[in-house]
C-alpha cells in the first residue's frame, strides 16, 4: 500500500466528489462483510427491551466492569465451578458481585459499599427476588436459573426514587 502516494490534496479532492456507483457498491460490500463476520447478536434488541422494562424509577445506571474469568477464583477449584466477578460503579454506591455455578443452581454473592440499609432486587426473565444487605454490605441470592439478570439497589433511608441505582443485564 502506498499511503504517501495519495497526498492530502488528492484525498481531499476525491473526498469532495459526489458518491458514485463504485462507492455504493463498496458500501454494500462492506455491509455484507459486517453482517457475515460481525453480526449483531440476534437477541440483543430483546434483551435491551427487557432491561428497560423496569417498573421502578431509577436515578443512576451503574457502569459495569467485568473481571477476567477466574482472576479471583481460588486455585484448585473444581472445573464444575465457574465464577465470574463483576463490579458496578455509580456515584451513590459501588457493588462487587461474584456469579458462581455450583451444582444445580447459580449463586450470586454481592457486596455493596458504602454499607447501609439497602434492599437489593434481582430481576430475571421469570423470576424476581429481593433481599437486604447485612451490616457489612453483603448479600446473597442462591438457586438461580441460568439466564440474564439485572440488579437494582434501593437505599432505605432515602425514600425518593432519586436514590435507586440499576445495573445493566449480565449473564448468570
Amino acid at each position, binding site marked *: *500500500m*502506498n*499511503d504517501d*502516494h*495519495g497526498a492530502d490534496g488528492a*484525498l*481531499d479532492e*476525491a*473526498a*469532495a*466528489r*459526489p*458518491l*458514485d*456507483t*463504485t*462507492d*455504493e*457498491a*463498496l*458500501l*454494500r*460490500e*462492506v*455491509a*455484507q*462483510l*459486517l453482517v*457475515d*463476520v*460481525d453480526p*449483531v*447478536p440476534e437477541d*440483543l*434488541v430483546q*434483551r*435491551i*427491551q427487557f*432491561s*428497560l422494562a423496569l417498573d421502578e424509577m*431509577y*436515578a443512576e*445506571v451503574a*457502569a*459495569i*466492569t*467485568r*473481571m*477476567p474469568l477466574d*482472576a*479471583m477464583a481460588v486455585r484448585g477449584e473444581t472445573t464444575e465451578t465457574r465464577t465470574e466477578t463483576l*463490579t458496578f*460503579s455509580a456515584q451513590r454506591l*459501588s457493588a*462487587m458481585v461474584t456469579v458462581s455455578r455450583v451444582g444445580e443452581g447459580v449463586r450470586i454473592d454481592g*457486596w455493596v*459499599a458504602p454499607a447501609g440499609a439497602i434492599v437489593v432486587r434481582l430481576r430475571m426473565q421469570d423470576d424476581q427476588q429481593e433481599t437486604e444487605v447485612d451490616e457489612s454490605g453483603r448479600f446473597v441470592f442462591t438457586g438461580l436459573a441460568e439466564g440474564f439478570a439485572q440488579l437494582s439497589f434501593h437505599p432505605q433511608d432515602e425514600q425518593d426514587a432519586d436514590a435507586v441505582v*440499576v445495573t*445493566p*443485564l449480565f449473564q448468570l
Partner: protein
Amino acid sequence: MIEARRSGETLVLRAGETFGRFQEGDRSAFDELVEMLTPLMWRTCRGAGLDPVTTEDVVQTVWMSLLRSADSVRDKHTIVKWVLTSSRREAWRVSRRGRDDRDRSGAVFGVDSEELMAIPANDDGPEETAFRDDRQRRLWDHVKGLPERCRQLVSVIAFADKPDYAHLAESLGMPVGSIGPTRGRCLAKLRDLLAGDPHWEEEL
C-alpha cells in the same frame, strides 16, 4: 439498500418521529426506537474496537440512560445524533475506564487491584472461517486499516440511507460537506487503500 429515498423515509427521520411519539407518552415507541438504532450503535462501538460483550454493555447503558433522561433531548430530530454521540463517548470512557475502576474497586473492597489484572479491550477479530472468501478477508483488512473514526463511519453508513450520510457523519464527529452527499474522506481513504492493493479488483 443504499438508494435515495423520499425524505420522511430515511432512518434519521423515522427515528425522530418515533422518539417524538415516545415523548408524547407512547412507551412502545421507545422499544421501536431500540430496534431501529441498536444496530448502528453496535457498529459504532465495534468500530471503536470494543469487544462484543463490552459493546452490549455500552449499548444497553446508553438506552437505560436515555430512558431516564429523555426530557433532556429537546429536539426529537437530534435523537440519532444523541444516541450515536453517547455510544461513542461511552465506548471511549469504557476503554479507558477499566484500570481506574479496578483500582477504585480494589480500594473499596480491599482487593489488590493487581489481582484484577487488565482486561484487554481490543478484539482479536473474526475467525478465519467467518469470511466467505478471500475478497472479504481482504476488504476486512482494509477496513481495519482505516483510522478508528473512519472505520466507525464507514461501517455505520454502510447500513444507512444515502440522504442520512451527512447527519451520521456529523453525529460521529466527522462532518462532511453539507452540499449534497459527497463521498467524504473516509470512503475516499478506503478507496485509496483498495486502489493500492494489487489483488483487489473492482467488482461492478
